[in-house]
């Protein structure tokens, strides 16, 4: 009888944990959906939200722009050198440029940008929202008739997404220029050959896919921390747990998006 009870308790705990896990994903998807709906409605954009968006972009993108650009350039340069010299050793120089652009511009740089922003801003957003939840600030705002979703969260999602877009674009351009210089040297003569390779890689599908992927990355790095912060119980000691859960879930989602994008492109 005691054994039966133990099994029953174990199953109940497992079931509760699974349900909570599923509820977490459910609320995340629901939050993402409502964020998207809000972001697309013009009513969201007023002077108050605009100011929050600007600050979010300033802290997420502008502040780290020089450092991140430098880092992206260094990473790109090293990877380009490795790929180009290896390809030359195997007599496959023709494919070096294409490989480099595909690897860097389409895959590595957007992912690294998302991870960079995740480490820097997502953790901060997650903590802030969890603390707001603990201090009942959200409820207080609602009592005052202010929609916290519209004033606090949606601007962060928009600002974060735009930041990831901007950083990805700048680092991608850097990689494209570096790839040209490393492969062809700093002369303009080989631009037609470069153009040919670019035309071979980027078609409408790839461009749309790249844009969509970067937007998804940008949304993930803001939506997941906010959603996890909101879900945290109103106890101060739950804040670190909420941040940890948010970061793990964010990492998982980023990888999932990347794998899905690779699978769609190459399988």
């Amino acid at each position, binding site marked *: 009888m005691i054994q039966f009870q133990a099994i029953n308790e174990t199953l109940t705990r497992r079931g509760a944990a699974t349900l909570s896990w599923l509820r977490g994903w459910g609320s995340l998807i629901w939050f993402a959906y409502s964020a998207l709906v809000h972001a697309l409605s013009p009513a969201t954009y007023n002077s108050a939200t605009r100011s929050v968006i*600007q*600050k979010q*972009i*300033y802290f997420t*993108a*502008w502040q780290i*722009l020089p450092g991140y650009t430098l880092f992206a350039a260094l990473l790109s340069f090293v990877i380009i050198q490795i790929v180009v010299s290896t390809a030359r050793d*195997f*007599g*496959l120089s*023709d*494919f070096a440029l294409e490989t480099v652009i595909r690897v860097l511009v389409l895959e590595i740089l957007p992912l690294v940008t998302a991870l960079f922003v995740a480490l820097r801003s997502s953790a901060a957003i997650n903590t802030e929202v969890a*603390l707001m939840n603990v*201090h009942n*600030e959200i409820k207080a705002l609602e009592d005052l008739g202010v929609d916290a979703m519209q004033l606090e969260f949606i601007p962060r999602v928009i600002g974060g997404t*735009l930041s990831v*877009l*901007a950083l990805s*674009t*700048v680092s991608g*351009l850097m990689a*494209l220029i570096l790839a040209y210089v490393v492969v062809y040297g700093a002369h303009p003569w080989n631009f037609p*050959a470069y*153009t*040919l390779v*670019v*035309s*071979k890689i*980027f*078609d409408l599908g790839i*461009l749309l896919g790249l844009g969509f992927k970067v937007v998804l990355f940008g949304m993930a790095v803001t939506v997941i921390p906010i959603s996890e912060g909101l879900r945290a119980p109103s106890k*101060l000691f739950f804040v670190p747990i909420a941040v940890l859960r948010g970061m793990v879930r964010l990492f998982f989602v980023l990888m999932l998006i990347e794998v899905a994008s690779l699978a769609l492109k190459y399988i």
Partner: protein
Amino acid sequence: MERAPVRAPLIKNLEFKVGLLMVLTGIIALAFLIYVLHARGAFEDSQALVLTADNADGVSIGMPVTFSGFPIGQVRRMTLTDEGQVRLTVDVPEKNLRWLRSTSVFTLEKPLVGGAKIRAYTANLQDPALVPDAEIPLHTGDTSQEIPVIVAKVRAILENVQAMTQSGSSIDQTLTHVSTITGRMSGPYGLMEGVLGDGEKARKLVDTIDHANTVLKSVNGISLRVDGMLGKTEQRLFAEGGAMDEVQQSLAQINVLLREAQGSLKKADAILGNAEAISADVKGATTDIGTLRAEVDDSLNKVNHLINDINRIWPFKGEGELTLP
């Protein structure tokens, strides 16, 4: 527990900085989009041509078509017809059309390492221009497909070579024979030894010829002596009778002697005949032997003459002719 409200520090030129970043991002994205459209020939008139092939292994959309190593066009579309033929639609920008003529040949080459390549060859750039949407066969030169055939052929050749070079083969035997013959030719009797088989036989032939020469010399000597003797006999014949018997006897002896000479000459002649037959195609040797024979003939004629003389002088006419068989 109340939290002190977090005041964001006042940021200088916040709007300008964020605006700059956003505009920059927008410009980069737009410029790249335009660049990609330009790269894909969106702002350039191009002409399509259709390449038909049985197999389009290794061909991909966007693959360049090269002329003299320079890309002049790209594969835009690949379709499979109901007949199982592959149709590759290639876009060639207007400015590159001058490299392609109606007589241009297109090949699909698949190297062992690396991707396939479509190459265009134009023999004469003055030929009439390519018709729009022209259908041109694509020749496939697949190295890897030809390798098994080449290997099979090479193997057959190697087997033949092996059969030719192994010991006991016809070529080996022939070479051994040639080696034997040339080995003999390098012996003291040269070509004759090579033809006759060994040095011993050649030596015999040469000995025989020498012998014949010696015999002829002695016959010459004998005939001289006979001449002298005839003079004496005549003297004695006309001077005094009684010596006739002696003379007759000595003449009979001479006759015997000459018959013996004839016999030995016949033998020599037979050997020479054989030698001539053996070395029929060896011109030099034949000429030598011919000369020899002529000499022998000459000698025999002389002897005949001698005997005729004797017969003329001698009233007891006997059988005195010597002929060479």
